[in-house]
């Protein structure tokens, strides 16, 4: 089982400690909410569900907050919780995702070049990510949105560095296959 940030020793907290902990949580929440929402969005492809996943992760964090000792591990714990929540959701009986065999309709209709296509470009990538298997998608999001290196990504996903490398390659290949020539910047550099 994944280990969260290390817990503080047990015992009842004094009222002052409780207030301090709540303030600390509030500060962390305000600092990280937008980033967590963005990550959740690329993981699931829908802002409403992203908010749902992000909120669930913060709720889980708050429930553990006063027992947390290693605050340096917070971000990794949140990322792990978020990925697990999203991946588990795709495995639930009522919402299982499949890697798409065919390209999403209306996506591969040519390159998006102009500034007016900026919003469309966003949707192209998000739609393409939906065609990537969830674990590979998580690797891509952690590496390219969050900017984590291989080791940090492996720590979040609790897998080996080799797995991260291979899933990065497979994930990019799946994304490129899904997008075709829609996004020039996604083509391998010649």
């Amino acid at each position, binding site marked *: 089982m994944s280990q969260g940030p290390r817990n503080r020793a047990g015992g009842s907290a004094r009222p002052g400690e409780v207030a301090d902990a709540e303030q600390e949580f509030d500060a962390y929440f305000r600092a990280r909410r937008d980033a967590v929402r963005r990550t959740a969005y690329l993981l699931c492809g829908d*802002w409403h569900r992203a*908010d*749902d996943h992000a909120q*669930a*992760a913060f*709720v889980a964090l708050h*429930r553990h907050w006063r027992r947390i000792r290693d605050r340096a591990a917070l971000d990794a714990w949140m990322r792990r919780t978020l990925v697990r929540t999203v991946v588990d959701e795709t495995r639930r009986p009522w919402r299982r995702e499949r890697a798409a065999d065919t390209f999403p309709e209306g996506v591969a209709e040519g390159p998006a070049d102009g500034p007016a296509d900026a919003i469309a470009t966003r949707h192209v990538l998000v739609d393409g990510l939906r065609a990537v298997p969830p674990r590979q998608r998580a690797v891509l999001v952690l590496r390219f949105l969050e900017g984590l290196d291989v080791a940090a990504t492996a720590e979040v996903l609790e897998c080996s560095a080799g797995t991260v490398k291979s899933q990065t390659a497979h994930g990019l*290949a799946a994304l490129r296959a899904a997008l075709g020539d829609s996004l020039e910047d*996604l083509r391998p550099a010649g």
Partner: protein
Amino acid sequence: MQEHGEADEARIAALFRDAASGAPPPGFDATQVVATSRRITRRRRSAVAGAALAVLAVVGVGVAAGLGGPSDKTVATASGQAADSAASGPGAGSEGAARAAAPEAAGGSGAGPALAAPAPGSSPVAPIGTPLGPGTGECADRQDPALRALVEQTLPEVAGAPEAATTLECRPGGERGVALEVGGGVLTITYLPPGAVTEPPDGARTAPTASGGTVVVASRADRAGDAAPLADRLEPAVAYLAPRL
């Protein structure tokens, strides 16, 4: 593996950042998070307290029956209650405890027909009464205390296991769920009401339930390649839960 250089990675990262921009206003704030967290904590404490009371009731009745001795009257009463349970549905918790405990105290000869096969572990086996059936809330309870109580009867080792993170998405209220962090992974138990379409995850065990719904029990390991926790317990668990749901 296809190599991609730093320039490649920078371009891809820029694409990802752009794709994640343009977020709508957030749909939740810290106040909502804290309120939800506290509500879950209160509910969990209530469920734990209820489970503790039920165990105390079982132990208490068992001790009382043991002190009273295995008289013919005790056996007859226990058997009668057990028989009644099959016909009259769910009794009060203490009645259920009496039905489960009294035959054992009487030497096991009077066990009622409704008692299920013993679950692994030492927890008392609850009788099968009226199935739990669909939830009644507006949204499905992702950490349903009633379902969790049943799960802990058949998998006593998960008692006290921390709840795994779940989404707050409002699912149809008839569904029930439990997701627990257990050694090395996550155990999920889902009840789907009659008519719900089921496509269980790989390795999951499913069974139709007494209320006409479906129970799905699944576990997965945190690390790819590791054995899923409690994998050998899923089958008996689903067999235990199906007649009670």
